[in-house]
């Protein structure tokens, strides 16, 4: 085994802050991160994180506020590029290609690794235009009919079609919060990415809308690899197969979701999931 932590007895909690507990490896990984460090100016926001993300897997990133899980997820499609003073060190491979390597263009990368944000952020345009924008700039549809097909398929997959099919030309901003978030998911999957990053997608939504999104994530797993950042441990337990626990910029523990929540191996993970801090 590559990671020596796996061999340790589970009877005693690991207290080592420098090494990740659990199996960072995944079979048939889509994304491979090795020794990733992120700096905001002088601040060392992510320290030495290594993690594999498996194909058609849902991995949940949990941890207290400011632990770096959002920063980490934003490295995966280089959204951190827009932040002045942000530097990334280490290796992140998406389908074997180093995304921080020389000559890497962020445009195809972001088409490959889509993102759904914390706050629903539809464009102030019609519902149709919101979904059609990505395919249009990437030239994915040959004609009007094909575009309509892409829009319909994406909205169907996002579970929004039946609700909006008669209002496609109404502004996207007129929808409810939950609908807007599903519209943003439809917009993301319209460019057929391989990976969808979700940065706390339900934190601005009510429980019913949240339940719909969670159900949707489960369905999307069939086609996409999903990385979800969440503050809700119940949500992580419900939607993910693997869970990674971050603490102060370090990846503390990673493992099967069931194992993390029933039998955490690191003291900090145990403290967090039992609600001793958070």
């Amino acid at each position, binding site marked *: 085994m590559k990671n020596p932590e796996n061999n340790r007895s589970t009877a005693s909690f690991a207290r080592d802050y420098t090494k990740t507990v659990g199996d960072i490896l995944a079979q048939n990984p889509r994304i491979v991160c090795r020794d990733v460090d992120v700096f905001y100016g002088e601040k060392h926001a992510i320290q030495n994180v290594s993690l594999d993300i498996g194909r058609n897997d849902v991995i949940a990133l949990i941890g207290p506020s400011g632990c770096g899980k959002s920063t980490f997820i934003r490295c995966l499609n280089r*959204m951190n590029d827009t932040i002045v003073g942000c530097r990334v060190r280490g290796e992140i491979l998406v389908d074997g290609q180093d995304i921080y390597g020389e000559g890497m263009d962020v*445009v195809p990368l972001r088409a490959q690794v*889509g993102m759904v944000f914390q706050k629903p952020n*539809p464009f*102030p345009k019609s519902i149709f235009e919101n979904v059609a*924008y*990505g395919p249009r*700039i990437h030239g994915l549809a040959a004609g009007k009919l094909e575009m309509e097909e892409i829009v319909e398929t994406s909205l169907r997959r996002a579970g929004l079609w039946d609700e909006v099919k008669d209002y496609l030309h109404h502004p996207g901003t007129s929808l409810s919060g939950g609908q807007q978030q599903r519209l943003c998911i439809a917009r993301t999957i*319209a460019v057929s990415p391989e990976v969808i990053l979700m940065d706390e997608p339900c934190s601005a939504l009510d429980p019913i809308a949240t339940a719909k999104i969670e159900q949707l994530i489960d369905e999307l797993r069939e086609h996409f690899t999903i990385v979800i950042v969440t503050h809700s441990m119940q949500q992580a337990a419900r939607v993910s197969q693997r869970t990674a626990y971050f603490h102060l910029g370090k990846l503390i523990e990673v493992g099967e979701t069931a194992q993390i929540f029933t039998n955490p191996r690191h003291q900090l993970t145990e403290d967090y999931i039992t609600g001793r801090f958070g």
Partner: protein
Amino acid sequence: MSSSNEAGKPGAPGHRSLDSVRAGLSRRRWAEIRFRFYGMVSLAMGLLFLLIMFTSIIAKAYTAFQQTYIALDVHFDEQLLDPEGKRDPVTLDTADYGALVRQSLGLLFPEYKDRQQKRALNNLVSSDATYELRRLLLAKPDLMGNTNRIWLLADDDVDMFAKGQIDRLGAEADRRLKDYQIAWLDKLQEEGRLEKRFNTKFFTAGDSREPELAGIRGAVVGSFLTLVVTLVLSLPIGFATAVYLEEFAPSNRWTDLIEVNINNLAAVPSIVFGLLGLAVFINFFGLPRSSPLVGGLVLTLMTLPVIIIAGRSALKSVPPSIREAALGVGASHMQTVFHHVFPLAIPGMLTGAIIGMARALGESAPLLMIGMVAFIVDIPSSINTPATVLPVQIYLWADSPERGFVERTSAAILVLLVFLIVMNGLAVYLRKRYEKRW
């Protein structure tokens, strides 16, 4: 246990704090009432001054929209105009039409005594009357030999008298009109030969030394041409600069320096831009002085900082979530800016641009420096011909001694204010119309 008892007792910490809150309540309420009162007083002051300004301008200006005309029975005397009867255009063009006016006036008032009174009589109508008669005859040659009642422009002194600006009870030496002139005018009035009509000349003529002939058309066209030059130059340059600085420029010491300088330029007195324009555009590049081209260039320099600053703040106010959304689906930086950020910022940017334009429209000091203060009668035909602009025209008329220019100055101010209100209204409309909510 003990803590709950303590809190229940009067004088315990809990009670005291509630009492002190109550004690302070009326003071706080009074502070609010006082503040509202101050606000309303200052608002009322502002409105009062605005009201005073508008009533004084309108009260002085409204008479300028009317002009006094005198009806004369003009006999187009063939002997006088075209003795040879050939209807030669040159002869007709150079004939003495002034004699027709003098003849008609002499027939009406044969009682004048001396040369001085004769001149005074002829001065009742505007010096334009002779040209008016020529225009009429050239347009309708069959007037020749006939006698027609023709309404001719009255002189500005007559106009002022008809509008009550000359006190007939005052001492004769203090008046621009002598007693006998007033007597003539009274007679004209009795015969229905004195009439006030809508002053079309004010809107169709260029500047003139004679108030009754002076109009704002030249200044309006000059202002329009100058603003077109300003708009065509400052809008694309300003928007491009704002978009580049806000969205593309790397943030380093150079861009900081540029930003500080743009902010400083916005505060530079406008006359300095006029001196710059004089030195650079006229003396160095040799562009024609007094021209809307140079005026527009100078005003462009002046409005650019305003447009850039307003444009940058409009771009900055586009929520970052929209940028992230566009970048998240794989739009390039350029696509993000031009598909999403810029369209959302346009209402704000346009508002800034229109307010900058309105400021340029009202600007006079820098244009004085580049010669747009010249006395220009012709209506400018292109951006290279000498012109003046509305605010400078106002300045010129305000400086003129004739009484007739007082009301025209106010009327020109009114026209300028109307343009400014329209432009600001347009800015508000654009903001309301295209503002998107998210």
